[in-house]
């Protein structure tokens, strides 16, 4: 068994998401709050990046700006070669529909729609025929071993199942960027783990992901953990060159 990414050479890849010198100021004058201060971050295909930091450190602001749901005070957000900070409303809307998937802590799925209909929705909004969208949705669910949930409504699913369906919806069609804000928030730890395992496997299959979490155990599923403090990146883990941990020396003795 191998966890080898399909993309072995990150250096030659374009990032799916590029944040450049991102700043966000809320309010002005005496009440001015710097939510983000010059954040740079690239996320590549196949990469899952966790963002950690104390509350108020700017984690969620970073995610909403990366997803085009909020605009930065300065800096650029580039999603697959499109600068969304410079894009017009129509381009931005299309990009949000086609390229970016979101998973939030709650209220992910539309209660009146089944799992398959929920997953099909962004494709239908994108102009794909209902029949084709449904086919894609069922295929996406099956690929993620969620096929048995296709005809269930959200209130007929557990929280963990709903979150996994939300991940399927975030990545249906050609979407390659998933932004997850505390997706395990309301879940018990084992269910949270299954949600993370799915997110991880989607990234292993080539998607790029950002996971905002305050749980170190979930952040540990990421390739890279970025630490925010007071709106700035203060540190990050660097990926091991080799999995030297627990190996090597022991075998030599």
């Amino acid at each position: 068994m191998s966890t080898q990414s399909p993309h072995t050479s990150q250096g030659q890849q374009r990032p799916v998401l590029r944040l450049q010198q991102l700043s966000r100021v809320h309010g002005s004058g005496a009440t001015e709050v710097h939510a983000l201060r010059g954040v740079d971050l690239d996320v590549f295909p196949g990469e899952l990046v966790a963002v950690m930091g104390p509350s108020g450190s700017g984690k969620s602001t970073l995610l909403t700006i990366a997803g085009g749901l909020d605009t930065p005070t300065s800096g650029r957000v580039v999603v697959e070669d499109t600068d969304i900070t410079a894009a017009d409303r129509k381009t931005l809307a299309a990009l949000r529909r086609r390229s970016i998937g979101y998973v939030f802590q709650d209220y992910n799925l539309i209660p009146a729609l089944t799992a398959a209909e929920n997953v099909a929705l962004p494709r239908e909004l994108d102009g794909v025929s209902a029949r084709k969208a449904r086919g894609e949705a069922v295929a996406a669910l099956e690929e993620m071993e969620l096929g048995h949930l296709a005809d269930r409504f959200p209130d007929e699913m557990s929280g963990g199942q709903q979150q996994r369906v939300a991940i399927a919806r975030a990545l249906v069609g050609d979407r390659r960027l998933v932004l997850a804000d505390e997706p395990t928030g309301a879940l018990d730890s084992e269910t949270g783990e299954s949600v993370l395992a799915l997110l991880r496997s989607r990234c292993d299959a080539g998607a790029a992901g950002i996971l905002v979490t305050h749980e170190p155990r979930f952040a540990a599923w990421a390739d890279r953990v970025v630490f925010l403090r007071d709106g700035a990146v203060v540190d990050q883990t660097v990926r091991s060159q080799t999995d030297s941990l627990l190996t090597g020396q022991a075998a030599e003795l």
Partner: protein
Amino acid sequence: MSIRHGLLALLERGPRYGSQLRTEFESRTGATWPLNVGQVYTTLNRLERDGMVAQDGEDAAGHALYAITDAGRTELKSWFGTPVDRSSPPRDELAIKLAMAVGAPGVDIRDVIQSQRRHTVKAMQDYTRLKAQALAAVEGGGPKERDDVAWLLVLEQLIFQTEAEARWLDHCEARLIRLSTAAGPGAPPVHGAPPIRDTPSVQGASSAHGASQPRRNTGPAHPARSS
């Protein structure tokens, strides 16, 4: 002592020779606590002296075999039945370091905390990758399932331990900030450094990913198995 009892537990499954015991101990624990053959034989000699194992002939290849005795079985049973002592904690270097960093001149305790946090979270990332492999091995079944399950439990212990440490670090930082806010500006225990550092403490932290960062490597095989 754990090696002693570990060997007794393995011998409970039938007579074995020294290097075989070493291999089996490491398969169970994923070589987290490597043993050398010398330690195994020293321990076997002591167990023999204490009447808990006895030499039991040789196998076809001429290895001296050891077998557990009734006294050894009694000792093993009592070990499984007795909790491991947690009332006299071993010295913890990190706790000592943070205790010494409180108010230490020229030391920003938040930097100490952050550099440990990075290290701890990175260790968790590594353990988590190994765990994903162990889990796949367990779910795949197979002849070594008992070893795979044992290894999974050991790995999860490491993950829980590092998680507890990461949470404790977060807690320390939050508490120090609360205390220094309550005490007014410039007061210890948070060293008088400004709360915001613009210079990242690792190379490339603010310049997005480190360019030299490798992609996901092929994980190791089960360490005990890669030998």
